[in-house]
């Protein structure tokens, strides 16, 4: 339907490969390069281009086939905090151009994915953000990322179905292929109550469909894989993305440290593939050393059968909740609703 997705490098890679290694953390890596807490990472696309190149290069050198641009908070609503809401075009374009530069000089094929994070606002009727307003913000960012040369647009860490749809609509407006992930951090669902099965259904109804969909961030690697199992149980043809955090955050010696080891993330990567994920990466806390371990594990270990929840818990640790809302064992409301 769209000319853009017919000949897309990510589509080609998905068609020709059994798995694709995505990147790891952006924020955690930038902290290690001196970003101060509370400052906007996106400003560095212009102010500290060498560090952003180093961020991208770190993923490429560690074996990632795909990395996300440093534009997670690059929408007008988020940049407003830093009085940079007038710089959406500039910051996103710069970030994408730096990504293009790093990807194009690699001797391997590297995909540059334009990261688009949530607006941070609640949509109507519960909140104030209108659907049209969300589409407009995502559209502005998508245009800039496209102009900067990304291969694919990539919305991530979304919790509300309407916001996910708004991003997809904006991506269609700029005629770019896209991927999308939601964050399942509340009893196995998104904050808004979306289950893995709900998301698979949501994605199935969006035209044009994403090249891949899945989950990122959330609680820990175990929860994320339970979500991936939920996606693959729906039997969708669309490839699945798994980008989990490297453990949980701890405060050590004045900075944030995620407690997942490279070995653990290697186990996670192999299990993610066994759960049905095709694009496998990390999120918060995932550093180049984790990515190296993930690449090595994916290359040296054979695919296995679909793991049970017990096996995931045994290898990666327990789950944050007893049910993720898809197994029929979710707790029931304690009140009967007397009104329709």
């Amino acid at each position, binding site marked *: 339907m769209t000319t853009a997705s017919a000949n897309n490098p990510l589509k080609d890679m998905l068609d020709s490969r059994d798995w694709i290694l995505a990147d790891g953390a952006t924020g955690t890596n930038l902290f290690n390069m001196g970003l101060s807490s*509370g400052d*906007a990472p996106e400003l560095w696309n212009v102010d500290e281009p060498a560090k952003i190149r180093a961020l991208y290069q770190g993923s490429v050198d560690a074996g990632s086939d795909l990395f996300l641009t440093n534009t997670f*908070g690059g929408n007008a609503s988020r940049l407003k905090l830093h009085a940079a809401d007038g710089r959406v075009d500039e910051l996103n374009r710069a970030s994408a151009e730096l990504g293009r530069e790093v990807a194009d000089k690699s001797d391997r094929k590297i995909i540059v994915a334009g990261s688009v994070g949530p607006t941070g606002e609640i949509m109507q009727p519960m909140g104030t953000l209108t659907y049209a307003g969300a589409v407009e913000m995502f559209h502005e960012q998508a245009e800039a990322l496209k102009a900067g040369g990304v291969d694919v647009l990539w919305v991530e860490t979304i919790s509300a179905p309407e916001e996910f749809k708004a991003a997809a609509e904006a991506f269609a407006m700029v005629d770019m292929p896209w991927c999308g992930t939601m964050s399942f951090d509340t009893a*196995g669902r*998104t904050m808004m109550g979306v289950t893995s099965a709900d998301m698979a259904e949501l994605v199935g109804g969006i035209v044009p469909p994403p090249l891949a969909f899945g989950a990122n961030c959330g609680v820990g690697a175990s929860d994320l894989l339970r979500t991936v199992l939920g996606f693959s149980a729906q039997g969708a043809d669309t490839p699945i993305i798994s980008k989990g955090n490297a453990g949980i*955050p701890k405060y050590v010696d004045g900075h944030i440290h995620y407690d997942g080891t490279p070995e653990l993330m290697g186990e996670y990567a192999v299990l993610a593939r066994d759960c049905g994920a095709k694009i496998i990466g990390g999120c918060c806390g995932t550093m180049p050393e984790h990515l190296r371990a993930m690449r090595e594990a994916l290359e040296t270990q054979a695919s296995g059968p679909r793991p049970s929840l017990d096996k995931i818990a045994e290898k990666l640790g327990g789950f944050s909740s007893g049910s993720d809302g898809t197994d029929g064992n979710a707790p029931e409301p304690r*009140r009967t609703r007397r*009104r329709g």
Partner: protein
Amino acid sequence: MSDEEDIILSELPDDELVLQMHDDLYDGLKEEIEEGVNILLGRDWAPYDVLTTALVGGMTVVGKDFRDGILFVPEVLLAANAMKGGMAILKPLLAATGAPRMGTMVIGTVKGDIHDIGKNLVGMMMEGAGFEVRDIGINNAVESYLEALDAGDVDILGMSALLTTTMPYMKVVIDTLVEKGIRDDYTVLVGGAPLNEEFGKAIGADAYCRDAAVAVETAKEFMARKHNALAAG
């Protein structure tokens, strides 16, 4: 269910009306809550009793189901909105009648963090539990926390951060309180999806609250301790 839709609130005896209001809060029915509050006031209930029995009682159930992964943010926002409708009627009356105060909380997301959904939920649930909430919004530098605390009568400082890039800022605020020698004047509660108890301890907070319901429980606990300490001292 359809034949049950014709509930006439004004015809219910007090105890049934209160239970019905709990259900209506659960279902986020704002107009029904406002009507129920007015009916109870019309029956000479003290505003404070309407607050605690009808509203706080109902929100406690909502909070428990939120904590247990039964209700999610959209349902809780609706319930909180209904409660706010009732609170708007009660607030001036509570002030006029000198009702007992639960405590006052200053709450805001830290510098760089726009993600205020959790913060808003905590604010609403705390109000639902009878606390006075001074919401200083998003993106707060340490100076704006200090200013809000300086305004007086504050018992609890609540900080929220949702991003890896903003979580450490909570420590900056707490360290500043320590430097100024006022850290122990307040109960400091922190929250946000990526946080955990150990993290809260490491940065020097009194407690990490994993969700809005836990925040309310924790706030009540600390206020009770404070009262006990005052009584003993």
